[in-house]
Structure formats: C-alpha cells, structure tokens
C-alpha cells in the first residue's frame, strides 16, 4: 500500500522489540468473536483505478460551469482567483493541526487574526471569531448565545430566513425545550415581526437580503428588539453583499452571522463552507468558537495565540459556551486570501457587478409575459412568480443545461403558496449569453 511505509521485515522486527509474536496479540482486548470481521468491501486499488472510478461518478453530475447557472439561496458561484487555491493547498496550511502550539503555528494564527479583523469590518461589528462550520450552524449558535446573554428561552425567526437555517435553529433549540417562533414566509416581503417580540424573547433572527432577495430594514427591528430587552441577530448568506449594502453593525445588530462561502470558496455541493460570527465586544465571553488574539513571546516579539479558551469545551467541559471544537480553518484561509486580494475597493466593485447582472437578469425575465417580479429591492438574487409550478419548469430547463434557480417547492415542500415561485441569482460570472438562454428557455417553458 502506497501510504504505508512499513514493510513486512520491519513489522516483524518491531514485533520482536515489543515482544509479541503476532499482530493480533496487540488486539487481545477485543472480544475474540468480534476480531477481524469479514467485510463486504473491495481490496485496495491503484491510484489510477481510484481516480478512474471517482471521475466516472463526477461525470454523472452536471457541473455548473457547463450550464447557464442561476442557482443561489445560500450558496453562490463566484470567481475565485487561482492564487487562493494555490495558497490553501500549501502543505504548511493544508496539513497543519489546530494551532495549539503557537510557537510553530503562527502561520495559521496570524491568518485567523486577519480573518477576524476582516469579518469584523465587513459586518460592522467589534469582534469576530475564527469561523464556524457554516452560516446555518452559526445562526443556531447565535440563538444559543442570545439565550446565554438574556437568559430567555424564546427565539423569533423572520419569515425571510432561509428555511434550512430556520430548521437548524429549531432543531438545536426545540430538543432542549426552548421555543422557536417562525413568522410565515411571504415572498412579497415580510412584516409584522415587531409585534411578535415580547419580554420572553431572547432574540429575533432576521436575514437580509432575505431568502427571497428582499433587503430588510434592520434598524427598525433592532430598536424594537432592544426595547423589549431582546437581541437582534442578523443573518447574511451572501458575503459579497457586504461590499455594497449597509452593514448589519451599522444598523444596530447585536450578533451577525453569515455564510462566508462566496468569498474564496467553491459551491462544493453544500460544503465545506465557512460560518462568519461577529458580535459586540461586551458579549465576548459568551461567544462560541475559537478566537485568535495578539500577544508577545518571551523575546517581546508580537505573536498570536488562541485565547479566551476558558469558554471552550476542552477547559470547561459541560459548562462550555458550545461543544464546537473545530472551526473551518482552511475555508477561512480561502476567505482571507481572497478578501486580502479584493480589499474593500475590489469587494465594492465585485458587489456592483453582481447587482448589475441581477438587475439585467430581472429585467430580462420580468419582460416575459406571465412572469411577475416580486422584489422592489434586491442585491444579486430576486424572486419571480411563474404561471405554473416552478419545479417542473426548472427540471425542463435543466435538460437544456440551464439551471434556472431554486423553485419554491425545493425549499418549502408542500407549501402550495410558494410552489410557483422561482428564486434566481446572478453573480459576476453571469454572462449576457446566460441571461438570453434563461429568458428564452423560460419563455418557452411557460408556453409549453
């Protein structure tokens, strides 16, 4: 086996040193009838054969790059500079362990510190952690954090929250007996959230741009929440929007969580992604996840360490802020490198391009007879209502290598009110040709 350096001669020699005759002498504690089970699995294969087998599976999928592509809803297909993948593949980053030994992990620690600074600036918050698994788990952690801060056990989710995010929050909280109230999802815009906030509410969780693409006025919601002693948790699933839109921090959010995939990371069929988590400094000891902090070494030189670890499970065990003990290090590095290339200026330009392509797509689609655009405002994604079931239309267009967007039926199965809606995203990768193909394909599909 190409990955195993020992040969049989060495194995025998080592058994001799240890003083055992057979390898199974080292497995004596395993119940004899359970040792060395027969397994219905193949034997080892050459790299050539494995690659061929995996390529055959990969080829059965319709890669986004081979289509006119308009799918979003929490994962966005952006262009990532080649430099990013080069850097994250460097052995010293790729195969490093969690930086618990800071003397030989400054590479990891410093980029996490840079990442935290970038995330804090983008979200408009005071501090950020070193990343979470993804946006949805970050949102659940935010709800748990709000509970720790407010000592209240009721969470209100906006109807514009991505339904997967809502499900993750609900799963984490309801199993332990907390209450999760979810406002109904309305593709034409959300309202009435403020009336739901009461003295039991730990936080309201609001996404903007929301899952339908609408931009939300977080300031008003923040005021309403704060008035009742509750926190505002803002959710952002498209990190590129930070380049163009007012940050949640500026609008009074107490915790901002987000999906960072858009910057530096591929769509990867849903993972791995990188959760962004930012908050006010006063809440820092309630934060989940890792934090890199600045310090000095024995020679007085600036360096970085993991800090405030008394919040974490390896110290606090059942009293920890969270059971999480990894972050999404390599994806955070991809984010940091891409962001360090973009800079604020580049991110703004990128955001404008995204918005412009979405505007052009929206115009092209809303010109089709029978198609209704439901958004007054949007960033790079919007919702249209079709005269027929959107899921069927999407399937039909997929056969023409047009991936038209996310139909309501996919995210809200069984919800008849939403089965005709289609959520369409554009990015800087969207071409005029893509838009033309979508528009004409959609026109045909509606007629047909």
């Amino acid at each position, binding site marked *: 086996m190409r990955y195993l350096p020992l040969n049989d001669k060495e194995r025998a020699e080592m058994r001799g040193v240890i003083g055992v005759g057979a390898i199974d002498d080292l497995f004596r504690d395993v119940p004899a009838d359970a040792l060395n089970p027969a397994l219905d699995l193949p034997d080892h294969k050459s790299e050539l054969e*494995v690659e061929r087998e995996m390529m055959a599976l990969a080829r059965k999928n319709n890669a*986004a790059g081979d289509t006119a592509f308009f799918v979003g809803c929490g994962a966005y297909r952006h262009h990532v500079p080649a430099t990013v993948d080069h850097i994250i593949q460097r052995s010293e980053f790729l195969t490093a362990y969690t930086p618990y030994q800071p003397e030989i992990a400054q590479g990891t620690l410093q980029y996490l510190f840079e990442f935290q600074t970038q995330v804090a600036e983008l979200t408009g918050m005071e*501090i950020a952690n070193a990343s979470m698994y993804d946006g949805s788990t970050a949102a659940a952690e935010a709800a748990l954090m709000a509970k720790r801060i407010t000592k209240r056990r009721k969470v209100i989710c906006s109807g514009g929250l991505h339904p997967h995010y809502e499900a993750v929050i609900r*799963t984490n909280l309801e199993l332990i007996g907390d209450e999760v109230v979810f406002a109904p999802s309305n593709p034409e815009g959300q309202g009435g959230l403020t009336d739901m906030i009461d003295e039991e509410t730990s936080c309201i969780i609001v996404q903007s741009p929301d899952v339908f693409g609408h931009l939300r006025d977080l300031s008003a919601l923040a005021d309403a929440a704060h008035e009742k002693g509750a926190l505002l948790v803002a959710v952002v699933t498209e990190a590129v929007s930070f380049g163009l839109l007012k940050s949640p921090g500026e609008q009074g959010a107490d915790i901002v969580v987000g999906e960072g995939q858009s910057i530096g990371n591929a769509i990867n069929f849903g993972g791995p992604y990188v959760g962004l988590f930012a908050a006010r400094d006063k809440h820092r000891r309630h934060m989940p996840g890792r934090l890199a902090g600045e310090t000095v070494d024995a020679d007085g030189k600036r360096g970085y360490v993991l800090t405030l670890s008394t919040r974490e499970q390896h110290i606090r065990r059942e009293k920890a802020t969270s059971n999480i003990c990894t972050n999404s*290090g390599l994806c955070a590095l991809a984010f940091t490198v891409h962001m360090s*290339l973009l800079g604020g200026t580049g991110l703004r330009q990128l955001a404008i391009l995204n918005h412009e392509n979405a505007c052009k797509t929206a115009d092209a689609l809303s010109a089709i007879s029978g198609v209704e655009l439901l958004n007054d405002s949007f960033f790079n994604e919007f919702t249209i209502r079709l005269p027929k079931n959107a899921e069927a239309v999407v399937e039909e267009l997929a056969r023409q290598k047009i991936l038209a967007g996310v139909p309501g039926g996919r995210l809200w199965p069984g919800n008849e009110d939403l089965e005709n809606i289609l959520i369409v995203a554009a990015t800087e990768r969207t071409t005029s040709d893509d838009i033309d193909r979508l528009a004409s394909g959609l026109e045909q599909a509606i007629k047909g």
Partner: protein
Amino acid sequence: IAEPLIFEVGDFEGTGVDLPKAEGIKPRIAGFDRQHAPHLPGLAEPEAMRHYVRLSQKNYAIDMGLFPLGSCTMKHNPRLNEKVARLKGFADIHPLQPQSTVQGALEMIDILAGWLKELTGMPAVAMSPKAGAHGELCGMMAIKAALIARGEGETRTRVLAPESAHGTNPATAAQCGFTVDDIPADETGRVDLAAFKEKLGPDVAGIMVTNPNTCGLFERDIREIADAVHEAGGYFYCDGANFNAIMGKARPGDLGVDAMHINLHKTFSTPHGGGGPGSGPTVLADSLAPYAPVPFIIQDEDGFRLVEDIEGEAKDAFGRLVAFHGQMGMYVRALTYMLSHGKDGLKQAAEDAVLNANYVLKRLSAEMTPAFDGTCMHEALFSDEFLKDTGVGTLDFAKAMIDEGFHPMTMYFPLVVSGAMLIEPTESESKQGLDQFCDALLGLARDAKSGDQLEKFKAAPIYSPMRRLDETQAARNPVLKWTEDAPSMAAE
C-alpha cells in the same frame, strides 16, 4: 523575520483583483447603500502571494514531520484526494440544483455511507454532521429524540461519561439538555465496571464512552457495559475519535454500540487544515436510525433521491443539523482514501498504527514512565513520573521537542494521569522516522534527569519561528483584531 499583517502592507484604496467594468446601472437597493467601501486593504497578487507563503513557513505540518498527537490521528493526507475533490463534477455543483443533475454526487455519498456502515457494522448513518463534536451532537440528539418518542424525554436526563472523556462529550450532553455524571477509571485505565453499574438507574439516558479510550486502551468490558446500559434502558454512545485503531479489525456494531461519530478528518485522512473543516458522520443502530436528521439519501427506481422534507417522509427525523447536505468536499476525499486502501489496506493501517504506538511505548519506556502496564492500542500514554524532582514539567518537555524538530505530543490529557503525555504516531510513520523520534525523546528524558539542563527546557523552544507566547496576557487584555493606530504590545 516578522511578517507584518496585511493591514500593514496593503493599500486601503487598492485591489489585487481585476474585474470587468461596471455599466453604471441604477441600483435597486432601497437606500441601503454602504457609505464607504469596507476599510480593508487590497494587495497586489505578488504581495499577497509572498505574504501568505511566508506566513505558511511559520507553521509545522504533517508534510514536514511527525505529529504525535494523541487522540487526534494526524496521518498522511494523500494528494490524490485533493485532486479528486477539485473535479468540477464534485466541486462545481450546487446543493440546490435539480437532483436529476447530481445523480453522481448522490451516488458517491451513498457509496461512502455504505463503507461507513460496513466498517462499523451499523445499519444507518447520518452524513451531515460537520465535525466530530457535531457528530456527537447528532448522536445525542437522536438519543434525545428516541427518549422523547418513548415518553422518557423528561425523566431520563443523566448521561454517564468516564473521567477520561474528551471535553466535547460533556459539552455535547449539556447542549442536548442532559446532565453529566463522571465514571471513575479503574487502575488499568479503563471504565470501573462496578462504579459504572452503581450509577445506572431509571434517570440514565445513556453512556458516552470512547473506545479505544483516551488512555489508548481498548475497553475490554465493552459488551458488558453495553448490555448493562441497555438493560437499564439507556443508550450507548461511542466517541469514534479513536476508530483508527480498530478500523477493519473490529466493528462497534458487533459490540453493542447505538451511535458513534466518525471523524473523516482523522480516520479517513481529510486534511486537518489548521483546524478544519472536519466532517463527522454518525452511524446509528436500528434503535436510533428512525430519528436520523434530514437530509438522507434513498435509492428508488428513478435513481438516488435526497429526502429533505422534515414534515413528510422523514417525520421521525429529529430535525436538520445543517443547511444543505454536509461536507461534500470531505466525503470525496474520504471515499477516495477508502477506495485506495480497500478493506485490506484499512486493516493493515490499523495494525500498523497499533504496532507503531507499541513500538514507541516500548522504546520510550526505557526512560519515560508508561501510565499503565502492558501494551496499548494506537497511542502510548506516559505520566510525568520520570520528570519528578527534575524541575522539568510536561509543558517544558513538550516545548523542548519543538527544538528537536517535532510537534509536541498531546499534553495533560487525559486528566486521569498526572502530567499526561499522549503519543499517537499513526500508521504513516516509517520505522526510521519512529527511531529518530524515539532517540530524540530518550535524549530529552536523559537531559531532563541529568539535572544540569533545566535552563534548556525552561527556555524552549529556541529554534522555532517564535519563542513561548504569553497566553495570560492575551486572555487578560484580549486584542482580537487589528486596529489602526492601536499601540502594539510588542517591545520591538
């Protein structure tokens, strides 16, 4: 040479990315304009490249040498895995594109699930957990859901866990609303069976046991433990962090386990990446399988299909753990690793991992104090007994390893051993490499005992990019981001 932060080298007006020109279309953002571009520098590509290349050179990594981290299984990360994970058919597909266009991806996940089930002897697996601790959460939530379904959600609230458990175990139990009750270890480093049985009762939801345990030992009474907890009406959660020692050799499903997470980033070689991303699928026994979270994959006449609707077909599911379907990128790498090894290679890997650990245990016992008698599984545990009265602590000893060119071992864990040093070489090490490592540690042990080199240990590391860092200062006055004009705490 110190590497500045990007904020100290980059141009805050600049950008290292060229983009097609915007057309000046009137924005439709309802007045939510960000007044200024984010205040972040944009580095030209050559500047960014050098910054991150030089930063990387301050890291230690598996590709440079041994990572003897007990309980962390840092093994070789094959580059084939990286190559395959970047195939457009895996990396460039969207989680919400029509399922008819991603049949190969669903099939791939289904094949991987099949391997995990067969290797563990368990009938079901929840694929979506994003890391080991997340997999624990999945397993404990399934137990919670099963208890609720049995009407015992309110009454069975106590979870038993050995003192030697990973910190995530109690944290996870607490996150699911359980209280945690410690089980003491016996003098052989294993669960004290009598003490354990005494703690069983009608309020026990289950037990969380790591096997092989964090002392590097196989819980030889595992079946008795399983039977006892089952008899008491509880479930058996197994922490699978140490599965590398027994993959292909023994199956948790044959030993009475109800749920176990598998760290794809430990056992199946997906890269650790400086702290993630991980992936922690959780295998489930029949008793817990119905409560597995969405999404899961089923195969019918039309091909593979994701079940995502929590209200419909998956009505017993305890919910959803993540948006979308989990760590696809890690699945691809793990399956590639499995196909490469095959059942014979995985078994050989487990055997080599155990052989390597015992070789290290044997050789180091010449100067260091093994925590327990006898052989071990895939990791060798030592106490600080041999450092007694030398003035050298476990931490000093570990930091001195850096100057010998090695990453320190796991220290002060498990807590049941004084000044614990836990060494897991994995199967990726050659005998030549192990001998170098052992020679270096034996030399250090002799130096420590010699009594006249205390200075060296206290000053270590010297030959690293940085000397010992002041963690207390970092925690007392946390500086968690760069701020313009903030006074640096560095003396230079």
